[in-house]
């Protein structure tokens, strides 16, 4: 049994999604089926489907620092400041040396490198015109470092590279650092600026895994029989995590408690998922939480819209939850696309309000369910009012075979 210093709770949420700029808007967009996917003009490629976040970059950052920094940094700063405000935390009253910034990222630096190589060719390959900003912009800790610079936070600030499992890993790492006593407050989650690099789009296209539709709102269709792959999106979601005793002492609103987690590796393929390892990951998270499959009310799928990925995950979830007749399953990417490093953290945020309203948002663009994805409890088309939601298991998986599962419980004393 964990004591109140070891119990870690979520007390604030800051997010930038293709269809919303805060948690309230995001939940509303998910319940009202508001898509954030649009057509954008991609360098070298032309029209593609993508999910861009449309938050105000200068709300929490001045123009000069925005120009000097990165899009990933701008997303991070916005989400971090929004999370602190949502948590009712005033930095002037906090020991900034005891705050940690832990951000999950799929990758970092591609956007800046592509831009500079583009400029290099415009400059007749004159490397003396290569920007001195290249190194500070492309170091892997840049997004977290930009938050530290913006907020004057002097505690540890770094990123966690974990492909598309990164959002969950940011939260897990933040929880671990709080439990270890390394910090007193964690700004933890995941971010992505993937829509600003053609390389990700071109690579998915070469892989036969890039979704496109003349109507962008229906391009991302996880588990649908006619799904066409991934819609690349950007976004971010950062949480304030605190030890329960500190959160209670300051009378904080508690969104939920992190009660279970697991991270493992497939060790089988660069890109193809592995059902057996996904099963083990979810089972391990349940064991850490001391819960059975029947105790989980919502499973949020990673479900990206690729043919094999969706089938493999559905097989894994079916295997773990076959004994449960009270677990509902949903997926988020149909409305927002795949926000890469932000996905785990952002999609969790979409389900957190279920603790309050008892609603389970559906999957989206699921017009004709692939029989191989037909699993028990799938909330296919319409929001369900299930009365009470107490637990969420949030899946996020990534390339090179990294799997993560996070279990959040409604806070109870």
């Amino acid at each position, binding site marked *: 049994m964990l004591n109140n210093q070891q119990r870690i709770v979520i007390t604030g949420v800051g997010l930038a999604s293709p269809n919303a700029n805060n948690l309230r808007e995001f939940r509303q967009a998910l319940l009202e089926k508001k898509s954030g996917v649009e057509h954008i003009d991609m360098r070298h490629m032309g029209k593609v489907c993508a999910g861009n976040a449309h938050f105000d970059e200068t709300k929490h950052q*001045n123009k*000069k620092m925005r120009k000097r920094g990165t899009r990933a940094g701008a997303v991070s700063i916005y989400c971090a400041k929004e999370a602190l405000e949502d948590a009712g935390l005033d930095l002037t009253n906090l020991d900034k040396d005891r705050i940690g910034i832990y951000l999950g990222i799929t990758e970092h630096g591609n956007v800046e490198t592509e831009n500079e190589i583009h400029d290099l060719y415009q400059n007749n390959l004159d490397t003396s*015109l290569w920007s001195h*900003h290249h190194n500070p912009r492309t170091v892997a800790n840049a997004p977290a470092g930009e938050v530290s610079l913006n907020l004057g936070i002097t505690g540890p600030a770094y990123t966690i590279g974990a492909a598309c499992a990164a959002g969950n890993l940011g939260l897990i790492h933040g929880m671990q650092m709080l439990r270890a006593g390394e910090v007193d407050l964690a700004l933890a989650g995941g971010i992505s600026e993937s829509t600003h690099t053609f390389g990700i789009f071109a690579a998915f296209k070469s892989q036969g895994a890039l979704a496109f539709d003349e109507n962008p709102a229906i391009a991302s269709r996880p588990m649908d029989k006619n799904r066409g792959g991934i819609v690349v999106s950007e976004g971010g979601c950062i949480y304030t995590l605190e030890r329960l005793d500190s959160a209670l002492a300051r009378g904080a609103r508690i969104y939920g408690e992190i009660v279970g987690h697991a991270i493992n590796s497939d060790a089988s393929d660069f890109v193809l998922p592995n059902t057996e390892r996904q099963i083990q990951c979810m089972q391990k998270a349940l064991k850490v939480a001391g819960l059975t499959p029947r105790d989980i009310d919502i499973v949020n799928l990673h479900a990206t819209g690729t043919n094999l990925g969706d089938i493999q995950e559905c097989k894994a979830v079916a295997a773990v939850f076959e004994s449960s007749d009270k677990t509902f399953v949903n997926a988020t990417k149909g409305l927002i696309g795949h926000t890469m490093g932000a996905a785990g953290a952002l999609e969790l945020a979409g389900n957190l309000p279920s603790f309050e309203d008892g609603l389970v948002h559906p999957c989206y663009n699921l017009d004709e369910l692939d029989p191989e994805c037909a699993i028990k409890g799938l909330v296919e088309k319409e929001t369900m009012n299930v009365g009470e939601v107490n637990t969420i298991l949030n899946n996020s998986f990534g390339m090179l075979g990294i799997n993560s599962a996070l279990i959040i419980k409604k806070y109870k004393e």
Partner: protein
Amino acid sequence: MQAEQVRQVVLDIIADVSMEDDLSNIKDEVALRDQLDLDSMDFLDIVMELKKRHKVEVPQEDYPRLASLSSCVEYLTPKMMQ
């Protein structure tokens, strides 16, 4: 390019680099860093823009010559007349 034009070139670059500083009351003889919110990265931006926009090379040993607006004009005018 005459001295007054060089002064305007430098001011235009500083305006683009500093973005939010008010340049209307800038004092030519006072060090730029003492009156504007400029740091070492901004300074490198100014050097880079001189090269990109006007093909003017400023070797590292000459960086102190760009300390104030008047020293910039004094140093750059001969180079930009070439």
